[in-house]
């Protein structure tokens, strides 16, 4: 069930961290990086960093672990780290995903945080391998000025290091930072530095020792809206009558520069490019195919500005909030839809059933600060267990829905700081006897039966005191 990984399409995170490779099982110094190239994409509000590392083992013992290092300020914003390695030769290359785990090292300088990459095959002495690392940062573009008027464009600060932070010696390294437009107010120069078009190039730098660090600050225009879902609660309710009902409650905020002063509708409507350039006008949600009964509403009723396009591969729901969101403005809404159950519910070999569903937020290019996924199992299901590809907080709840007597088991999973690239699938396993499906219809039938019996009885009993 692993999603096939396409080298570019998948990863998207941001900020700069420095990567380092270390073998914990062998001395750090036995590894070094012969070449490192880092491409930082700051065009949207999720900063994506693509890092290509060529790691060589100069030591004598084989090693299977490589370390990545991040400064502590970046770790807080780090949403995901993925590492791919190229397998095969020439044209028949495939990309294989490697395991990455956060690691604590006792002697980390300045509180640097580490991630360990577990290589598929140990790296023997003298060998080298090329790792493709992708990581994403959220909330790493800091609007400056923090408040803008309606007609101003949004400028942001981005902080990183010109040199890649690594516990290894790096022989040669280059960093590229891509900005959304040519308008760059200022950037720190660490020679050689070059600004051409929408790209700033740092490097190449030769022979830098481990833990080299050189802070840089880039101030540039980024007029893309910063949709941030502060809280998302997804409730997936399984009905064995053939429907999967999904309800998603959003608290959306525009995380960019705060709106200041006047909002003039006349400017907004007549000059859409100049006025409110960074405002959030619409969002696109990618829903599974064969979706039905889609609704989009908030606490005061239906929101009429939405479009649903469906084809056999996917469904796209384009939604507009009730009002355009300027920086700092909030909106809450609910999206709900039904899905055919057979697309998502399967039987496993051990006679259990499992639900296979996407974990993350279906809105594209959106950061989710806090996500709660609730899987409501049918009444009478037992032994629930969830399998999620990344660490989440889990617990069980009970929910009473239509005519429930014992309540439904709810598997609750919580995760913070989520980006769309993590829309990977999770599974919830449970056992369920189909006879429970009949419980509620039988209950209703017997209630009506009793009611009619009572009526018949009443009509045949004379309750009068006097004859």
């Amino acid at each position, binding site marked *: 069930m692993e999603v096939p990984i396409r080298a570019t399409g998948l990863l998207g995170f941001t900020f700069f961290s420095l990567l380092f490779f270390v073998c914990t099982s062998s001395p750090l110094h036995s590894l070094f990086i012969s070449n490192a190239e880092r491409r930082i994409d700051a065009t949207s509000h999720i900063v994506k960093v693509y890092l290509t590392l060529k790691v060589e083992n100069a030591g004598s013992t084989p090693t299977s672990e490589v370390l990545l290092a991040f400064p502590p300020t970046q770790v807080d914003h780090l949403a995901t780290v993925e590492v791919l390695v190229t397998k095969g030769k020439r044209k028949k290359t495939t990309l294989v995903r490697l395991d990455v785990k956060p690691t604590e090292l006792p002697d980390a300088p300045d509180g640097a945080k580490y991630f360990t990459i577990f290589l598929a095959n140990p790296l023997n002495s003298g060998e080298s391998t090329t790792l493709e690392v992708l990581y994403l940062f959220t909330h790493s573009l800091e609007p400056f000025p923090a408040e803008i008027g309606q007609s101003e464009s949004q400028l942001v600060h981005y902080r990183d290091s010109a040199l890649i932070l690594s516990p290894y010696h790096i022989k040669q390294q280059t960093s590229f930072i891509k900005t959304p437009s040519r308008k760059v107010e200022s950037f720190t120069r660490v020679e050689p530095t070059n600004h051409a078009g929408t790209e700033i190039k740092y490097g190449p730098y030769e022979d830098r020792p481990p833990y080299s660090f050189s802070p840089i600050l880039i101030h540039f225009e980024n007029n893309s809206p910063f949709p941030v879902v502060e809280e998302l609660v997804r409730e997936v309710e399984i009905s064995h009558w053939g429907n999967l009902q999904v309800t998603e409650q959003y608290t959306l905020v525009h995380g960019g520069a705060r709106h200041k*002063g006047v909002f003039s509708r*006349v400017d907004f409507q007549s000059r859409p490019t100049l006025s409110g350039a960074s405002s959030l006008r619409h969002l696109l949600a990618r829903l599974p195919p064969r979706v039905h009964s889609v609704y989009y509403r908030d606490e005061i009723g239906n929101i*009429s500005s939405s479009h649903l396009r469906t084809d056999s591969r996917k469904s796209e729901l384009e939604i507009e909030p*009730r*009002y355009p969101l300027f920086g700092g*403005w909030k909106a809450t809404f609910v999206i709900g839809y039904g899905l055919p159950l057979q697309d998502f519910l399967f039987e496993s070999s051990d006679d259990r059933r499992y639900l296979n569903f996407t974990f993350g937020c279906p809105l594209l290019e959106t950061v989710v600060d806090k996500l709660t996924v609730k899987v409501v199992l049918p009444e009478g299901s037992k032994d629930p267990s969830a399998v999620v590809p990344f660490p989440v907080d889990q617990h069980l709840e009970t929910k009473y829905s239509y005519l429930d007597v014992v309540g439904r088991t709810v598997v609750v999973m919580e995760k913070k700081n989520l980006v769309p690239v993590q829309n990977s699938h999770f599974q919830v396993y449970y056992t369920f006897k189909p006879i429970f499906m009949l419980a509620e219809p039988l209950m209703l039938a017997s209630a009506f039966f009793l009611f009619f019996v009572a009526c018949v009885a009443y009509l045949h009993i004379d309750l009068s005191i006097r004859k």
Partner: protein
Amino acid sequence: MAAPESSAAAVPTLYTNNALRNAFGGVLAFFILLLIGVMAFSIRLFSVIKYESVIHEFDPYFNYRVTQFLAKNGIYEFWNWFDDRTWYPLGRVIGGTVYPGLTLTAGTIWWLLNSLNIPLSVETVCVFTAPIFSAFASWATYLLTKEVKGTGAGLTAAALLAMVPSYISRSVAGSYDNEAVAIFALIFTFYLYIKTLNTGSLFYATLNSIAYFYMVCSWGGYTFIINLIPMHVLLCIVTGRFSSRLYIAYAPLVVLGTLLAALVPVVGFNAVMTSEHFASFLVFIILHVVAFVYYIKGILTPKMFKVAVTLVVSVGLAVCCAVIAVLVALVASSPTKGWSGRSLSLLDPTYASKYIPIIASVSEHQPPTWPSYFMDINVLAFLVPAGIIACFSPLSDASSFVVLYIATSVYFSGVMVRLMLVFAPAACITSGIALSQAFDVFTRSIKFQLPGIASNTEVDAAETSSSTAEAQNDVEKSEETSKNRPSKKSKKKEKEEKPLPKAKAEKKRLLALPLDSSVISLLLLILLGALYVVHCVWAAAEAYSAPSIVLTSRSHDGLHVFDDFREAYAWLRHNTDVDDKVASWWDYGYQTTAMANRTVIVDNNTWNNTHIATVGTAMSSPEKAAWEIFHSLDVKYVLVVFGGLVGYPSDDINKFLWMVRIGGGVFPHIKEPDYLRDGQYRIDSQATPTMLNCLMYKLSYYRFVETDGKAFDRVRQTEIGKKYFKLTHFEEVFTTHHWMVRIYKLKPPKNRIRGKTKKPKTKTSTTSSRAKRSGTGKKNPWH
């Protein structure tokens, strides 16, 4: 009824025939009633299907908010609820000023459903309360009409009521207002009154008091009941129809009903102190006097009785005069003569427009026009006279009540459009009686003249020709009689001696109706009914289902939705501070508190005229004066509704004259003529400078000229008078997509001081002195 008359041999077969047919009729009537209920419910769902499941209009939003509070906090919190989010800074004691019937009903339904683990939201329950209660109301109509004229009339009346447009207009899904349950309570109370009157059973009398209590809980219109029933009692006494049944029907209602009514916080001691209730006590006394006289008459010889009468009359007159003099003095000492403003405007239709502009400003308090009668009750308007005539043949206690009911409600509906709602059930009942009687007559004469039946004996024919309705009615009556023998005896006797000779006489007369004309008349009646159904469905689908917070318009490129109100309320809800105060004209108060969850200055409850006048004054004042008023009220945002861009006619500019009038009523420096040019209200270049400089004009038209270059107002169909101006004390913070709602923020005081350097006097005023001024200078604080 026919069985005893037939020959001895015919009795058994006729009896079984009758029993079968009655059983069949009973089942049929039951299913018809069920279907009527389903129809009453489903005809009101057009709004949900065409729009969405949402609360409509203004008042329902308040009721919805109260229900939410009740569902969340429980009943005791509800009684003690002091709402600080409205009428800032005064607040409002919701628990003591609201008719709780509707809220408690919906709250109970919600609680019941939730305890059965049916997780419907409060909103859903509220939306569907009105359709459910219209089904109940049509069943109650059936019961009431059945008591008056039998099952056939009952079913017809129930069917008519289920779809009468006047009632639909107040009870479509989402129209969560007091009237939704009150009409049911009204009809049901009347039914129980008639039932008590017919049976003389104390059980029904008690039920009647409880139904009256529910009505008092539900709607201020309960005063209609407590005046109509005494009138009927009086009528009965005057026409010599006094009986013990009348006493049982009335006396417990007054005693129990008044006690129960006083339990409702919003009524309280009003139940004994205001003039609306006076009639009931007066009739109560008269009833006792009459009962006493009858009693005395029974135990004394005629001669003694005459002596007693002279004695009692002379003493009684003296006492009465004294009591009446005291009462008159008491009543006269109160400025409104003990009547509430709305009741007074009912008795004197010109009262409100003369003295209380706030009541007159509400469109539903205006007198209706003739087309609105046709729109709201359609063909019933023609059937009502026939029904009244039918009520007179024969006139019983029950039918005289219906006649009285329709006569009074016609008058009230003529005074206020809103009371058309009370008129509609009466119209349905009389029309139901008329239709049913007409069908009765026609079908009977057809059946009688058909060859197969005509050869039968007259008795047979009489029997077959009597409509199912009547037959059933009689059987039910006789069943009832057997159940409540003692009380029904007199009734039964009456019944038996009345219909039989009459039926014969009628039959004789009906024979004169030719076959072809009966058939044609029947067809015409059916056509009439069909027209009514078509009209009702059209009214339900097109005229009355719009929720008014969402507007739609059809153009060549499809349906266009104007959802500006909710856009603005959602914006306020999410993007302003939770304690910010929003000022708007009072129409939008309930919606702002419910949808935007922000504190408002005035709302649709209109209990404090001065407060509303303050807002009206602010809206009518120039910018700076308005800023001062609003600032003294802690207002942060001002909301105006503007329809000029898309042609939405009920916007604030069109309501503006009422703001001026209401404001001017309290603060005399606002004078209506200042806003009118030669008596005409206009906003174009001919408008007066006062008009062009007032806050409402400025907030509505700020930067409007930039939309089309000409500033053409599509509601007033004219170019506006002053196109280019700047706001100095307010700034635009939000305008919705179609400009229907514009929200402005008050600029902070420092800007005001800077802008004021030319006028030293007002400039120096600090916040505290300003507050003081607004507090003390109620009469004319802005000069």
